């Protein structure tokens, strides 16, 4: 079965410092991986995705993610954090095992807190 793990409930980082939000996955077949962000009382917004090709994927708001097949990881990164990056971040994997529908499976989420 496909699954996603986000080992950290919360990540704290000072503004201007690099940030990493961790994600590991378990899939059968090709991994289609996504990151979403959720601001308070809002719906989720798509940040970036890995489908194939370059292991370093660039997305919205200066975020990027590195796909590592050997470590089955897809960590979200940003070189310099902003206070406005404080939000809830979800890693997700597309379940391709069921031909009845390509459902998206989400991790439990990691809350990022950027301190000024």
């Amino acid at each position, binding site marked *: 079965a496909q699954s996603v793990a986000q080992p950290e409930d919360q990540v704290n980082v000072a503004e201007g410092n690099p940030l990493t939000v961790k994600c590991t996955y378990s899939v059968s077949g090709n991994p*289609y991986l*996504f990151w*979403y962000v959720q601001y308070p*009382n*809002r*719906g*989720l*917004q*798509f940040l970036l*995705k890995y*489908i194939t090709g370059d292991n370093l994927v660039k997305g919205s708001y200066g975020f990027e993610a590195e796909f590592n097949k050997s470590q089955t990881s897809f960590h979200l990164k940003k070189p310099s954090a902003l206070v406005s990056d404080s939000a809830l971040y*979800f890693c997700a994997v*597309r379940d*391709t095992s069921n031909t*009845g*529908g*390509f*459902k*998206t*499976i*989400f*991790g*439990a*989420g990691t809350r990022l807190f950027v301190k000024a």
Partner: protein
Amino acid sequence: IAGITQAPTSQILAAGRRMTLRCTQDMRHNAMYWYRQDLGLGLRLIHYSNTAGTTGKGEVPDGYSVSRANTDDFPLTLASAVPSQTSVYFCASSPTSVATGELFFGEGSRLTVL
């Protein structure tokens, strides 16, 4: 602005009552989904629809039903609400039902069942 509209944004409901959460999209996306978000559990899929006229069950379908009469609308019905259905519900859509498409989310419907 194109997107997904959910209604109501918030509702308090007595246990045993019937409730329908509405979801409408104007992006002509084929696939639509209903998720519930609970603290510490992330988002869990309730039901999905790959195209108008078809629906399927997700991880937590019990107590919920959906219909997809047309491309734009995907209502979620709780036939007899129970307190464990207290949650924030998100409707989402995707341009196609293939694996590479990202999801577009509505703003959510917060439901409290007493």
